[in-house]
């Protein structure tokens, strides 16, 4: 597999879904967590997904990231239809083409920061691209923390290591699941700035689920979900704009 070229706006979409549906349970207990969502995530874009608990935003993200299999519909990442992949190929796709930043417990406690960052490359038995590694480590300000284990890092530092790990394979897209949810205000804002930078300067594609209007406002656009459907969309969001939409959805 060739290392992807730095992204340009002319690239094909990083990911798309067609009539994506995910149903849990059967009969009376049936829950349509995601109900026929079709959307496109352009390369080099930064998208935030918002919605109340149970709106299906996490499920949408899991299906998009190849962590969960849809009940029906299609998910494509970089042109690959995920439903055609067996577990091993799906795992390898996650390893090579998807980066993850979770809310907590992002890092393997037994590995140092450096080892955590290069983990996806090592899992693929490949050495990380040294120049790219230096670039992201420099951009994230982790240069002097690489030899430390997660327990020796602050929450903000841990999340930055997770971002570095997500970026190290130059994936088609990076998923964030409340990446700032566990951070104090300052660290959270630093992290959001870094995510913004990685889109603007490193041409990465990011999709993140969040409750936080401030986080959502750093994205290029925000999708609002309710009952498993995209009910609203906001481009070039501001904090106030996001808050208005949320209020509108709640009433």
């Amino acid at each position: 597999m060739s290392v992807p070229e730095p992204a340009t706006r002319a690239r094909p979409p990083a990911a798309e879904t067609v009539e994506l549906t995910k149903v849990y349970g059967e009969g009376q207990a049936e829950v349509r967590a995601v109900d026929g969502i079709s959307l496109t995530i352009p390369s080099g874009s930064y998208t935030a997904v918002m919605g109340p608990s149970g709106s299906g935003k996490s499920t949408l993200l899991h299906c998009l990231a190849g962590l969960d299999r849809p009940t029906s519909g299609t998910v494509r990442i970089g042109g690959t239809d995920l439903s055609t992949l067996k577990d091993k190929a799906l795992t390898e796709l996650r390893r090579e083409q998807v980066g993850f930043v979770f809310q907590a417990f992002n890092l393997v406690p037994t590995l140092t920061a450096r080892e955590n960052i290069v983990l996806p490359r090592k899992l693929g038995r490949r050495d990380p691209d040294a120049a790219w590694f230096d670039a992201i480590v420099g951009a994230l300000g982790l240069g002097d923390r690489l030899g430390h284990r997660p327990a020796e890092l602050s929450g903000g530092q841990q999340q930055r290591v997770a971002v570095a790990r997500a970026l190290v394979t130059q994936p088609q897209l990076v998923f964030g699941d409340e990446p700032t949810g566990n951070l104090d205000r300052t660290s959270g804002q630093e992290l959001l700035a870094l995510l913004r930078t990685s889109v603007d300067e490193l041409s990465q594609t990011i999709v993140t689920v969040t409750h936080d209007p401030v986080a959502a406002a750093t994205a290029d656009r925000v999708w609002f979900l309710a009952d498993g459907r995209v009910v609203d969309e906001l481009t070039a969001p501001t904090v106030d704009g996001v808050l208005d939409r949320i209020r509108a959805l709640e009433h």
Partner: protein
Amino acid sequence: MWTLTWKGLLAAKARFVMTALAVIIGTGFVAGALTFGDTLQQGFDRLFTSIVGSADVVIRAEEPEDGPGPGPTAAEPASFPPEVVDRLDALEEIALVDGEVEGVAIVIGDDGEPTGQFGPPTLGYSAFVHEELDPAELRTGRWPDTAGEIAIDAGTARAQGWDIGDDVGLVLDGPVERPEVVGIFGLGELDNLAGASVVVLDRETALARLGTDGELTAAYAMAAPGVGEAALLDAVRAELGEGFRVQTAAEVVAEQQEAFGPFVEVFSIALLVFAAVALLVGSFLIFNTFTIVLAGRLRELALLRAVGASRGQLFGSVLGEAALVGAVGGALGAGFGLLVARGLQAVLGTIGIELPGDQLVVLPRTVGVAIAVGAVITLLAALVPARRAVSIPPVAALSEVAVAAPSGRGWIRNVLGALLLVAGVVALTATLLGDAGPTILGVGAVALFLGVAAMSALIVRPLARLLGGPSAALGVSGELARANATRNPRRTAATASALMIGLALVSFVSIFAASLQGTVSETIERSFRADAIVQAGTLAGVPPTALDAVAEVDGVEVVAPAAVGQLEVGERTITLAVMDAAAVPAVFDLDVADGDLEGLTAGGLAVSESVASDLDLVAGAEVAATVPGGEATFPITAVFDGGGIDVSGFLDTAAWEDAGGSVSSAFNVYVRFGADADAATTFDALGSVLVAYPQVLVLDQAGFAEGLAAQLDQLVGVVLALLALSVLVALLGIVNTLALSVVERTREIGLLRAVGMTRGQVRRMVRTEAISVALIGAGLGLALGMPVGAVFVRIEQLNITSLVIPWTQIVVGVALAALAGLVAGVLPARRAANLDVLEALYSE
């Protein structure tokens, strides 16, 4: 709080099962050992009762004092003329009386080899006239009537595949003959006793050819109706007078029980040692399980604290759970013990030792002990983890980050461990340099063991790093496996402890055995001048006709038969080679440290250095000893270096006969070839004339050394059994700990899977960790056992002169350990690999 304990148990069946499993293994071996011992005891009791049959009194000739104890061990048992039975028969107090001849009859298997070589007794008996008195019971066929007919025990018949009508090989007093089997019998419920072969001959043949010169060895009598025991005894004693031992059936049974009591006891003690090892290792396992299980419940415990449970209440609840699991595990362990006891019987059965006791004897005491031991051990093992767990602050329940139990005071443990290690090393050094005995070394070994156990947290890391090289070659799975094995070194060390103990024992004993064997071969090379040794393969000795045949072989110059004699000096038994004094220098090259061998001819005694130092003897001194004829005094003529020779003294034939000893059966015949004879040709010729005597072995020096060494194989066998046990327990321990670790690391595994670890890589990671743990245990075991073994063989009293490290056995031990790790890793690895990524990622 009891409700909490109950709910706690029910809520987590998995942790209940895991802990209980650990308890079951530990207590199972205890229950198994007890059950086996009880079964053996009862079996022997029944056997002895049935051996007396329906006789009320048993009459034997008085045996010389300090002679052979009960049981047919003497080549020449005490005997009396058959007329004695007629005299008894005439007594009106006696309803029925019968005589018995007991001697040696060697059964030759269809492969031409004696069935009981170097092993269990080979017994020959006369058939009874009155079958009512016969302790043996015919299963099929009939008792023999004439020469050329025999009856044989069912065990031997089954082992050899013989049936009525078969002609089988038998040696009585001459070369092999082939009588016909006309009957097959059992002894009570047994086919056979401890692998002994028993042949019954017709009365005439038995009297003539069992070595009693036409005399009987015992008589069994049944009282006439209405005659009491005392009256019967009095009548028989009055009739026979001095020189007879008249015993009631109960007395005979008691005597036999007393004779076999120590055997049963030794067996039970050996088994309980096994059980203790299993229990020790099991308690590590329980400790581990509780630590992990409680670590997984910290948030729950913190929540209970937050809603108002006191520390003491939680502690009580956790300990209550421990005691309950322990007791239930102990009860199940008692059941598992039945399997263990059956397994032991089966194992002994396959190596030819059939012990009495068909029905397992399960005493209430066994179940009680298993339950009590299970509860107590579990309680003790849970004490530390429970204390640590309940010291969790209530606020931890509210915290989002992963909670960890406050760790124990590591530095105290490490300092203590270091002190123990130093003490151990000092003890070893003292043993090596000075004359500190085995006790100091034993204390040192225990100190080393405890030191290593205490310092495991520090020791495991570097060991894992050492193993890390090869496992890192597996890529990131290997690196993670290594990291996982060291993330909780004490847990790893506890898990590995079973293999540590196993490998320590194996390396210790195998070094001891190999060094002893090495010393034996060395000494044999040095101290034997004989070119060949003819050995009696059975208790009957080498037949005189065989001696004649050997002497006639071309090239044979000296034939020196040696009988075995025993002297008692105080508590010390001296095993003598009784032989023609003039022949000693011809066949031995003894390293005489003091005096000379000349005095042997004049009735002097030559003793080994170890005897001399034990009894404080020097050449020229005299020693008073108990001999078959009573007491005798011998001048010490020489003290020789006896390391490795299986005799501790030499005495001339004439002097032994003067002391009342028997020289009629030679057990070792030393043969020297002429200077101009070709050794190989002569040895072959010797072999071919002795083909007619399958009950003897002919060996060259190397073969003799091997034969002596083979006796050590039993020791090695016991050690291998210990190894097998430790491997089994280790296997379960690794499965247990790893399965719990996988549960504990569910979220981490989910993360790894999310960022691109394939199922195969997860599997490999867990398996590699299992193997690493096993190898760490093996490594620690070798690090303990090898130095202790190497120092042990240097202890002077043992007279071991060479240090041999049996690398093959050690490598096999390590390979077995690795295999245990490999097998143990399979299930936890599968479980880890099959975790659902999403569920794992978002698990608590």
